[in-house]
């Protein structure tokens, strides 16, 4: 059996259309805490749209025109919403033990989304081309040098930081979020902890 056949059989087994596009969810998913993940994704979608607009028009537009200020603000506040809801989703997942029953990879990919998201936000702050950006870059360079990556990741190099912010890191975040969603679809949402059952008797 060649690699293509193996991959096709694996996908046919683990990725059915019923799993990918379910029309019913378990009863325990009826709760507001289960909306934090989708709120994070909604923020990410809006972030990408506003970011593409900003990248296409450039800093001389977003710093000067009224519409540029508006789209820049949308982009900024979507970052706040993204991290706000991502942390709430993290709390929910933590208290539910969302890594249980073979969901370890889902948890780890979620952690990676969080870490790469922080890097994306950091390079975004540096790419603002204002005094805040200069201040953050000058402060941040010492941290980068201290951990030995300053030669490869130079926060004072606007071109490099902008490239990281608008291409490399967003592509990575989107890929990780896509993989996270795929894993959630494959394994389903974790069951809540059983109430009143001693820990040693829990499945």
């Amino acid at each position: 059996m060649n690699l293509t056949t193996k991959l096709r059989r694996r996908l046919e087994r683990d990725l059915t259309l019923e799993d990918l596009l379910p029309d019913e969810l378990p009863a325990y998913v009826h709760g507001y805490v289960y909306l934090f993940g989708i709120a994070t994704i909604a923020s990410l979608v809006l972030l990408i749209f506003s970011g593409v607009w900003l990248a296409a028009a450039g800093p001389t537009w977003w710093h000067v025109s009224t519409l540029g200020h508006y789209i820049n603000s949308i982009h900024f506040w979507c970052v706040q919403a993204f991290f706000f809801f991502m942390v709430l989703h993290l709390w929910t997942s933590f208290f539910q033990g969302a890594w249980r029953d073979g969901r370890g990879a889902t948890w780890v990919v979620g952690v990676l989304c969080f870490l790469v998201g922080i890097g994306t936000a950091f390079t975004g702050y540096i790419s603002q081309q204002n005094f805040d950006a200069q201040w953050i870059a000058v402060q941040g360079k010492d941290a980068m040098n201290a951990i030995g990556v300053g030669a490869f990741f130079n926060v004072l190099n606007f071109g490099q930081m902008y490239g990281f912010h608008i291409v490399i890191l967003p592509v990575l975040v989107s890929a990780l979020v896509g993989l996270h969603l795929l894993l959630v679809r494959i394994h389903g949402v974790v069951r809540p902890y059983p109430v009143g059952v001693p820990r040693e008797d829990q499945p």
Partner: protein
Amino acid sequence: MKDVPRYLHWWLIQISVPNLVVIGLMLLIFALAVVLPFPHRRPRGGAR
């Protein structure tokens, strides 16, 4: 840079008021999301 936020300082902890407000909001929304009942449709036929 022009609008420097107010900072609170207690022992080892130093935090700006805006950051503290955001953390407070997150705790509040999390608590409400846990406590508030989620609306759901009645099953077809009207019976509960």
